[in-house]
């Protein structure tokens, strides 16, 4: 079953004097439970593509369908609500709220969803334990390493029970050991809980773990490989 389907997805920036064709007519289907890496050199359109799939950017033309919803047709306020309930985000710079503890960071998104306190606390503790931070739930981000912060970010992304997780360069700021730990943890969640992960990356360690690798160049798909 397709979780995401894009049709002739195009994004052109007209901000400068020269038009920039960031994404040019991408047709793509991603199924539930995939562990997919979108790779390519800087400026190839990875992040722009992910932003349109995640409803953070509007396409110039084409469609993005998530489940039964055409994301490109949603209004701004509907998009916010859609993201809250359907998509988990993991960012390159972790982007945790520095004044909150690890558990509070994970709980925050559930509070935005209106979940009650008991449920929030229970799920946040479980998720943090699952990502190997059961003993650091009351630590603030400044007391955690980069790898630990990114694991909190993954727990936060999963807290809202999303249809899929978009991870934009999640390992770019991590050392080898942290990268390995993070990828093993995400692969485990993918295999055991059938969570769909889509990465944008040019990190070969991520590419090696991915079961599907989509290569972009100049905003177009130049290859789409599935590993057995």
């Amino acid at each position, binding site marked *: 079953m397709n979780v995401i389907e894009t049709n002739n997805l195009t994004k052109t920036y007209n901000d400068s004097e020269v038009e920039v064709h960031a994404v040019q007519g991408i047709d793509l289907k991603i199924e539930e439970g995939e562990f997919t890496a979108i790779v390519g050199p800087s400026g190839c359109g990875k992040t722009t593509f992910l*932003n349109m799939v995640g409803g953070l950017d509007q396409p110039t033309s084409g469609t993005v369908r998530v489940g039964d919803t055409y994301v490109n047709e949603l209004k701004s306020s509907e998009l*916010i609500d859609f*993201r*809250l309930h359907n998509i988990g*985000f993991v960012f390159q710079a972790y*982007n945790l*709220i*520095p004044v*909150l503890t690890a558990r509070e960071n994970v709980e*925050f998104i559930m509070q935005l969803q209106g979940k009650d306190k008991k449920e929030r606390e229970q799920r946040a503790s479980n998720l943090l334990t699952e990502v190997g931070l059961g003993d650091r739930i009351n630590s603030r981000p400044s007391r955690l390493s980069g790898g630990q912060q990114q694991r909190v970010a993954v727990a936060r992304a999963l807290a809202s029970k999303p249809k899929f997780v978009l991870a934009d360069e999640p390992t770019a700021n991590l050392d080898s050991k942290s990268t390995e730990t993070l990828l093993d943890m995400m692969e485990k969640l993918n295999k055991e809980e059938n969570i769909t992960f889509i990465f944008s990356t040019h990190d070969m360690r991520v590419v090696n773990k991915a079961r599907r690798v989509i290569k972009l160049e100049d905003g177009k798909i130049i290859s789409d490989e599935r590993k057995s």
Partner: protein
Amino acid sequence: MILSVSWRNVWRSKTRSLVILFAIALGIFTGVFNYSFYNGMALQRIDSAISTEASHIQLHRKGYLENPEEKAFIKDAEQIALAIESEDSVKATCYRFIVQGMIQSPTTSTGVKVLGVNPEKEQNITNLHDKIIDGAYFEGISRNPVVIGKKLAEKLKLKVRSKLVISFADASGYISGASFRIAGIYETSNNVYDNSTVFVRTEDLNQLYGADIKAGHEVAVLLSHSDYVPIKQHELKAQYVDLDVKEWRELLPQVSMLESSLDISMYIFMIIILLALIFGIINTMLMAVLERTKELGMLMSIGMNKAKVFKMIMVETVFLSLIGGLVGIAMGIAVTLIFANSGIDISSVSEGFGAMGYDSIIYPVLLVKNVVDVVVMVFITGILAAIYPAIKALKLNPAEALRMNM
């Protein structure tokens, strides 16, 4: 959790927050203490005007206040005073015979207002007897005693027991006069009053004027509480339709104006302070929003809607304003309490104030109502100051905000 995040965000940049908090606290303290100082000053002036000059209510012949002619006296003033004194909510009454005359000493002379009073009754109404600084209140002199103000005594170069002559036009229109001897010298906070008002006994003055001892130009009424003034005035107007019944606010409009303009002055002063502070708060919050562009982008990306982002910035700004405001109010209350008993001596500049009837020692007074008003004003300031930074935050595009390198 938004409240908790907002609260913690206030302390995220401690130095910056403390600087603006100090500015808010200092501004509010200045406003609060300024108000308590002027409030104390005004209340003392009003109290002095009632207890020394006007009492709560006065009755006169119609037209007397506009044209105070000696012949416009009330024949049965004593009877009216006694009748009113027996009524509910009336603490005391007295009647006075008033003439405009000349007072002469061996060295100089000047125009004065001469009040013929019953010393015993008068001390139930005014605090003249408490204001005697030399000699005694109508004591020690058996024949024609007079009590005069300190300023006037200095001007006439007279002391206690000195002789002086008071002359005025009597009932027949002829100049009449007599020699009086100073029994006491008084001093109030009102230099003008002290310089122009002398007190003699009704029996002496009325006899010289040629009027019955029971006649007087005004009947003064002191009530058990100033709140009763409107009701009692209304009742007395109905009872004495031939007389002018006026309350102290009508008798001393310049003092009444103090009462009515005090709150307005305080609000204007406070609004000016808050307007100055609002720019500092906006600047602080704009910096906070700018520094957190990426974080706000993240929050909007994961699904925090605009209303919640707006609320978070709003609550943070209100917290910042209220903390500073409450510290400033607390400082204002503390300093007011410190000086409420000891008073603030402004004698070095009190010559000018004395001419306007103000005391040289001011006892600051702060009312609960005004404290509540300041808290509300600070709260509103916080909300107003939050609007622009919050709108700035709302205008962020999540995708662009996430790309920013802060």
